């Protein structure tokens, strides 16, 4: 599915980052178009999660620049918070607020950040929970839900903010195998509705079926990027070939 419009929403230019001696992001240049689904793959430690987390500044960068809708990311304070409110994020470990009910988790953003009326926010939250199939759990606390249910709630919590783009940082890596699909299904639906998505994942089927572009990273660099069919069938670099060989037969 090629993207027709060429309207970049996320732009990264010459981004570098170090953790002490470790050069985790090396001269990263990446553009994500509106409505595009970009999947980041690569061996562990390749910097793909770090890259994903720089886009809403959960990780700072040493040099280069990142633009969202053409504007550089704010560095701090209210402006940064306002930017984050426009970008949804789903974490590997769900990170639902442990002391709040499922419903309160979903209304937290709209009520506390967007200052929406609580009644309206709750009505919309219930719709979102129904959409991801966990409306029956609305009044439980996160620890009472399965991992798959928690992650679907986390997606609903992000959607409640009406984000312009969504980041998924290994959303299925902490799940038991039988729960992976229920989360992927929700993500597929989102992609089909035209949500802009950056997804760090090890789910190759998802990457092949849903993404517009696969970005392959190794040792802090973007080694190659291509359409999913081209990438999986005809990888160009030795690194990518090795990586794909190593995960084949699983």
């Amino acid at each position: 599915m090629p993207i027709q419009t060429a309207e970049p929403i996320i732009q990264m230019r010459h981004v570098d980052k170090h953790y002490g001696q470790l050069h985790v992001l090396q001269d990263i240049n990446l553009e994500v178009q509106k409505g595009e689904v970009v999947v980041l793959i690569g061996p562990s430690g390749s910097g793909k999660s770090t890259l994903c987390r720089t886009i809403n500044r959960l990780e700072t960068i040493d040099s280069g620049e990142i633009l969202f809708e053409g504007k550089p990311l704010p560095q701090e304070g209210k402006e940064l918070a306002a930017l984050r409110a426009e970008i949804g994020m789903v974490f590997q470990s769900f990170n639902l607020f442990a002391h709040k009910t499922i419903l309160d988790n979903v209304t937290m953003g709209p009520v506390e950040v967007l200052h929406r009326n609580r009644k309206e926010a709750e009505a919309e939250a219930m719709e979102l929970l129904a959409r991801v199939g966990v409306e029956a759990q609305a009044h439980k606390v996160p620890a009472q839900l399965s991992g798959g249910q928690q992650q679907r709630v986390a997606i609903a919590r992000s959607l409640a903010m009406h984000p312009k783009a969504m980041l998924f940082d290994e959303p299925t890596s902490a799940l038991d195998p039988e729960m992976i699909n229920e989360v992927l299904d929700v993500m597929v639906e989102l992609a089909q509705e035209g949500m802009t998505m950056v997804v760090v994942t090890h789910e190759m089927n998802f990457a092949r079926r849903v993404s517009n572009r696969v970005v392959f990273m190794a040792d802090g660099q973007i080694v190659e990027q291509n359409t999913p069919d081209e990438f999986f069938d005809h990888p160009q670099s030795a690194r990518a070939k090795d990586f794909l060989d190593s995960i084949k037969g699983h």
Partner: protein
Amino acid sequence: MSANVSMRDALYEAPGPKTQRLVRIGTAISVVLLVAFVAFVLRQFYVNDQLNPKYWSFFLRWTTWRFLLRGFLGTIKVAITAGIIAMALGLLLMLGRISPNRALSAICHVVTDLFRSLPSLLLIYFFFLVIPKYGLRMPAFWMITVPVALAASGVLAEVFRAGVNAVPKGQVEAAMALGMTHGKITRKIVLPQALKIVIPSLVSQLVVVVKDTTVAYVVSYPDLMQNARVLISNYDALVSMYFVVALLYIAVNYATNQFSIYLAHRSDTPVISRVDENPV
């Protein structure tokens, strides 16, 4: 005490037949030693005439108890007031310390460490001997309450901070990703979870506050200890009086501990299943 049992289960494997025999022998020896010790103490009391009715009979008089209970109330009043001040101040110190404002954070860090490292007796002397020289003369109640509260606030600030640090980092990241500001994240996400975590250690810390109040005699505030000293000189009954006073302190602190166990169980709601977080 289910907490103790589970701790023991977690630390040691179930005993086998040989271990069970050793445990039985050990228990028997301990019981014999304990009985021997109590018998020895009673004998020493007897030999030194401490069991003489003249040392104990005044406990039959209501006036004795009224005087002791008045002191007991004084102790409770100081302990509760100091405890409340210490909690409020400790919370403020901790919030200042974790604030992104560097100067405020540094000041709160220094103040916390200062209160934490100064002995409360030294703080009491400061309020009793130094401050009055500069014209501020407080009632005896405050001369004991304020320094005890200050000393405890430093420790409580660290208790609160331990609770804040125990809240998983992912909770804060999720709140940041929603667009919440530092203040809102602290109020809505971090503090509610941190307080729940530290309630038991918080209440145990109040036991220390109760014990700190015993130096009230320095400022002549009539607490339990001070009134006991008066009775001791009246009746010339050191051992019996301190024995009864010790029981009273044990009763208060036992009640406080039970209260903390109750709170710990009540706040025992399940917490999110944690997955190891390792970005990169």
